[in-house]
């Protein structure tokens, strides 16, 4: 395998991946803790290391709008943001997916105001759960690099044609220097190729590329009322369902060029073969949980961890299957659940099991809001406590 080792933090790893992916238009706006991505990419542009149009816009809303316009012309586009920036983009998220534009966006997870807080939790990206963006939550800088490269291929796949978010935990991953193995430029370039717009059949025009093209004038962003809107939304539903085999396949193909793969592309388990108690977690906290699982297993405890990599599409079958012998499941959510049954990952997990034959006890742990530390000792206590619980509890881990 081609091994080039670099010392990069998560943001730099993302910027480096974008540089290698032959992206045509990047548009972004600064916000902590995402800013390094934009800065690093600006350096690549300033030093002529990448042939790309970089549009430093006046707001995140415009950043995604620029990507929408550029992607509609057939360009490969990228943007990145966090927290308030993502909140400001909200209107455009639904438009990007509704127009079926394969934009890739890095989200450096950060808590939402108020109170204002720059540190990590997942309430920003979880807030766009239903925007029809594929969401990949990364565990470390290495995965961030790998996932960005995969994301372009997933987004642009002819069966998918949907935008993809790649998320990393603010500061914990974004600002922490890590060992990252990168691929040679030409290997990445070959892997992602050049964006090929899909062709569609238009009555009277024949097969034409689905882009803004003066030779084949198409109309994008029509007014679409009760007679067709519903069908178009169902097509989006079908597209994200079709992304499942694509995500799996690209995870495998990526293994061929890099020697790295992330479980089946959706979930990554450890100790689940014989676990009686398991924890579901996403993002950087998975590493802490895994280390505790190792420690407890060394003591003979039957515990395991399931790291969730994609929250959208939600791998409900894979989860039920991977936890088929587990009796107690702790679901860790790093975002609030105001007025609901529990956090977003918890609710999805409950629903996944409701539709299966099995009814394990499932407990929700809301943790790490606003960057609150979740040290190993807390995780260990959670594993001790889990077998004693009834199921259905919503607990706040690490709150005073």
């Amino acid at each position, binding site marked *: 395998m081609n091994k080039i080792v670099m010392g990069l933090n998560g943001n730099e790893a993302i910027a480096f991946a974008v540089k290698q992916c032959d992206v*045509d*238009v990047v*548009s972004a706006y600064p916000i902590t803790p995402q800013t390094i991505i934009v800065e690093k990419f600006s350096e690549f542009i300033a030093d002529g290391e990448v*042939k*790309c*149009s970089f*549009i*430093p*816009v*006046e*707001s995140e*809303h*415009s950043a995604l*709008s*620029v*990507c*929408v*316009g*550029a*992607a*509609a*012309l*057939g*360009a490969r*586009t990228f943007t990145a943001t966090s927290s308030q920036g993502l909140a400001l983009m909200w*209107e*455009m998220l639904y*438009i990007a997916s509704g*127009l079926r534009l394969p934009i890739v966006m890095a989200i450096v997870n950060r808590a939402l105001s108020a109170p204002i807080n720059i540190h990590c939790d997942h309430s920003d990206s979880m807030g766009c759960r239903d925007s029809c963006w594929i969401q990949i939550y990364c565990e470390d800088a290495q995965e961030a690099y790998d996932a960005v490269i995969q994301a372009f291929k997933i987004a642009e796949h002819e069966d998918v044609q949907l935008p993809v978010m790649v998320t990393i935990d603010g500061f914990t991953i974004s600002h922490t220097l890590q060992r990252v193995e990168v691929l040679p430029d030409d290997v990445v370039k070959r892997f992602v190729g*050049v964006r090929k717009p899909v062709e569609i059949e238009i009555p009277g025009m024949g097969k034409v590329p689905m882009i*803004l*093209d*003066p*030779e*084949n*004038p*198409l*109309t*994008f*962003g*029509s*007014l*679409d*009322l009760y*007679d*067709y809107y519903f069908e178009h939304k169902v097509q989006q539903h079908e597209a994200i369902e079709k992304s499942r085999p694509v995500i799996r396949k690209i995870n495998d193909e990526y293994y061929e060029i890099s020697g790295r793969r992330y479980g089946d592309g959706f979930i990554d388990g450890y100790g689940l073969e014989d676990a009686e108690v398991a924890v579901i977690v996403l993002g950087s906290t998975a590493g802490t949980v895994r280390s505790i699982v190792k420690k407890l297993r060394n003591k003979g405890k039957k515990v395991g961890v399931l790291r969730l990599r994609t929250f959208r599409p939600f791998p409900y079958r894979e989860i039920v299957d991977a936890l088929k012998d587990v009796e107690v499941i702790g679901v860790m959510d790093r975002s609030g659940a105001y007025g609901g049954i529990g956090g977003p990952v918890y609710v999805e997990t409950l629903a996944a099991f409701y539709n299966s034959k099995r009814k394990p006890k499932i407990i929700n742990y809301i943790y790490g809001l606003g960057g609150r530390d979740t040290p190993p000792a807390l995780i260990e206590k959670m594993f001790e406590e889990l077998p004693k619980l009834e199921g259905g509890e919503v607990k706040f881990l690490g709150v005073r």
Partner: protein
Amino acid sequence: MSTFRFNIREAARKPLGLLPGHRLCAGCAEPIVVKQVLLATRGPTIVATATGCLEVSTSIYPYTSWNVPWIHVAFENVAAVASGIEAASKILREKGRSKYDHIDVIAFAGDGGTYDIGIQALSGALERGHDFLYVLLDNEAYMNTGIQRSGGTPLGASTTTTPAGKVIPGKPENKKPIADIVVAHRVPYVATATPAHYLDLIRKARKALEVNGPTFIHALSPCPRGWRYSESLTIDICKKAVETCYFPLWEYDNGVYRLTDRSLAIAKNPGMKKPVEEFLKVQGRFSHLFTPQNQWIIKRLQEYVDAVWENLKSKCENV
């Protein structure tokens, strides 16, 4: 320097950019302006449109009135969308992935989408210097949502959010000087236009397209529904707007201001200038001003129009 000469015979043969069958109201000025602007195109062109009457009435799925590649994204961001299209078109050409040597990008937006909710995206795109033409279709209110006031609504006009009431007689504020705000960005070309002065409009649109950089045309776009007049009067009202100097025709071309068309004639022959009442009295949205207790509003409007006109003349090199 533009070598463009508008030829009506050639124009008649040019395929329409906006086809008949759209659902804008009879008498609406918006499609007239759009067709005139699209007569000025010089080659491959892409059109972006903000949310508003033009968008909803020309793109009802599964039909489209657009004979050019067209995109609508949202209300406040057409300038950002146009930025993305322009940037992509340039980089794809540099990378050898475009069939075209050049693509002109035109953005259309209403006054709501320009003076108010879209001004941030517009200002950003102007400052970044994207090569595109932005056409403001100014019907002086949010028509698509039912005639609500905007920053472009004039003093005294009755709208559904500034109704002519017993205590407050229509909109209390003056119109925002949007074209001046655009000029303040030091863009290469800014002009005003109306569909009644179509040679002037088409010439300006072509000039704007030929300029490399952001350009802006502020087109008055009377709306029979919102302005409360009979749909046959649209062109007439445009003429009155110019004859009263309520809406002077001018251009700002690389630092030089010039009056154009009828407005130039008025400047040279001040006796031609008509009182603002001529423009107001044919429109129902101003009818409440013609009562004794509201006469002061007409007076204030006239003072405002006069001040803007005098100031404009003082800036123009051709008067």
